[in-house]
């Protein structure tokens, strides 16, 4: 396996940033977010878990999907294809999160063209976790702190540097340009957590749909979008046609899509005012059921990867692991 020292890695990242857009975790006023960097010195080395996942680089928080020019005739123009980019420092859970979004946007007909283009243009370089962090529970969902699933390259910290595993064809091509020497390396086993609950089957979740537990846990839900936006698998969005500019004789519109969340009251409200999920109880329950029952049944993928960000982001202490444990207990 190839091994790189920190210095070699920095040098390689610096030259990579010259050729392509390089994205990595950055410290912005003590928040760790994935942003574009001009080189290795902009990276927040030594981070545990970031505050936002790198999801926005595959599925942007806001993006135009069409341009419509209305003059004497109406012309629909496609938007520019995304430029190639590399996201560095992706945790294994976030890579599995991308796979979860693939299950809907790529594997189901019709394919989401915009998402597919981002996926194609992006290389994910992972950084294995030496341990599970405070809010993590990836193992409950079948993941691991050193999983290579969904990554193009995985770096693991070893004595004196990083071990490089090129996982995909894209990863192998990129890793070929990395410096470093081949060494006989044993990768350290990450430290796992004990005593985590078991994830129950979709049938068992279905049985517990009517439990009073759901209304109790949702009493304190504020109906904000924090959990959904920090989540690496949540992929619901809103679409609006908005005026971009007016030219003499013409109007130019953009069909914009932006992240949205099922936890918000207006999310499921339809024309005429009817809302199939009128109470916060129904909306919050839907969020958990989507992750652990509907998504697995419809798309064969779990809607949660155990990154724990929603636990940290939720201002009122709604804890998804507590929910999983509660269902586990309800079934036992």
């Amino acid at each position: 396996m190839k091994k790189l020292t920190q210095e070699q890695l920095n040098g390689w990242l610096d030259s990579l940033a010259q050729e392509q857009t390089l994205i990595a975790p950055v410290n912005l006023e003590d928040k760790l977010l994935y942003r574009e960097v001009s080189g290795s010195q902009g990276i927040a080395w030594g981070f545990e878990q970031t505050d936002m996942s790198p999801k926005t680089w595959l599925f942007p928080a806001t993006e135009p999907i069409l341009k419509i020019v209305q003059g004497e005739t109406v012309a629909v123009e496609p938007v520019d294809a995304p430029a190639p980019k590399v996201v560095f420092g992706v945790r294994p859970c976030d890579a599995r999160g991308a796979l979860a979004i693939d299950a809907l946007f790529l594997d189901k007909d019709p394919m989401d063209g915009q998402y597919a283009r981002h996926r194609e243009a992006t290389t994910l370089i992972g950084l294995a976790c030496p341990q599970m962090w405070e809010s993590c529970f990836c193992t409950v969902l079948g993941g691991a702190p050193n999983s290579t699933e969904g990554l193009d390259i995985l770096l693991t910290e070893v004595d004196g540097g990083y071990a490089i595993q090129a996982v995909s064809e894209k990863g192998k091509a990129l890793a070929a340009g990395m410096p470093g020497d081949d060494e006989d390396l044993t990768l350290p086993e990450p430290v796992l957590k004990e005593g985590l609950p078991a994830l129950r089957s979709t049938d068992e979740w279905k049985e517990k749909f009517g439990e009073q537990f759901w209304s109790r846990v949702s009493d304190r839900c504020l109906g904000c979008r924090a959990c959904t936006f920090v989540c690496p698998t949540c992929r619901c969005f809103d679409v609006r046609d908005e005026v971009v500019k007016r030219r003499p004789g013409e109007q130019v519109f953009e069909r914009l899509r932006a992240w949205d969340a099922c936890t918000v009251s207006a999310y499921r409200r339809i024309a005429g005012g009817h809302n199939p999920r009128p109470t916060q109880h129904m909306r919050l329950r839907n969020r958990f059921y989507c992750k652990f029952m509907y998504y697995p049944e419809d798309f064969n993928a779990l809607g949660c990867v155990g990154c724990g960000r929603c636990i940290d982001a939720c201002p009122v202490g709604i804890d998804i692991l507590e929910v999983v444990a509660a269902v586990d207990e309800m079934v036992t």
Partner: protein
Amino acid sequence: MSTMEERIRDAAREYLEQEKVTCVIGYERSARGVVRPAFIYEADDVERLIWGEDCNLDLVTYLHNFKHPPGRGVPIPKVAVVVRPCDARALNLLLYEQQIQRENVKVIGLTCAGTTIRGEPRTACQFCSERVPVVYDVLIEADGEIDVPAVQDEYADVQEMDDWTPAERLSYWAREFDRCIRCYACRQACPGCYCYECVAEQVEPHWSSIALELPEKHFFHVMRAFHLAGRCVECDACEAVCPMDIPLSKLNRKLAKEVEALFGYRTGDDPETAPPLATFDPQEQLRM
């Protein structure tokens, strides 16, 4: 002498046992040690209620969830809510704005020496000299003397920013709003924000793009601050809930400072006085 926590539980137990309320809204601690709102429906459950200096959410916002009849012919439920002095003024605001009726709420008022967020005293608490809630049905007083910190200038941090140039201020807010993810936690946590449909989400008329970008985020925060002008009680819930640690209460407190200077008004001192933007004075002349 029982602790504050014990007396809060006693008050809650009494209200529930005597069926004066269906629910008591207070604070509890999760297994991880995180403080969060607690909804107690049974007298046996009151042991969940706690009180500590990290209890920093405004629980009055939850009264909006209990203000409508749950069904036709079903009366509006009565609830009890634990309030700190700032929260009590939010209650008065909601009473003035006729969102709730006084007879439907039992107020468990706490004397307060300030609460913390992430170990630090909260912004509003650093400048607050209020110790006793202005409205309560039962008052739970602190164990022993409250150490009243010397409060110099109530708006010192806002004043400091007032002395910067406009360019410096724009630079500051651009950096802070950049981290915003438009999750609306600030809006949802605020007792004064209860519009059925927020202008930030309205399609018709279309005030704001749905884009999660800097101009929209700037617009949302400035607009929200303005909609709370003369209505904000400076409970700092907005800042406490922000997942990106944006110093939101500075915006609201700037307006509170101006409201106090121009109109001598503090929000929520009583449920009858109109907030300054809901009324006018034909004699006054203001620099606009």
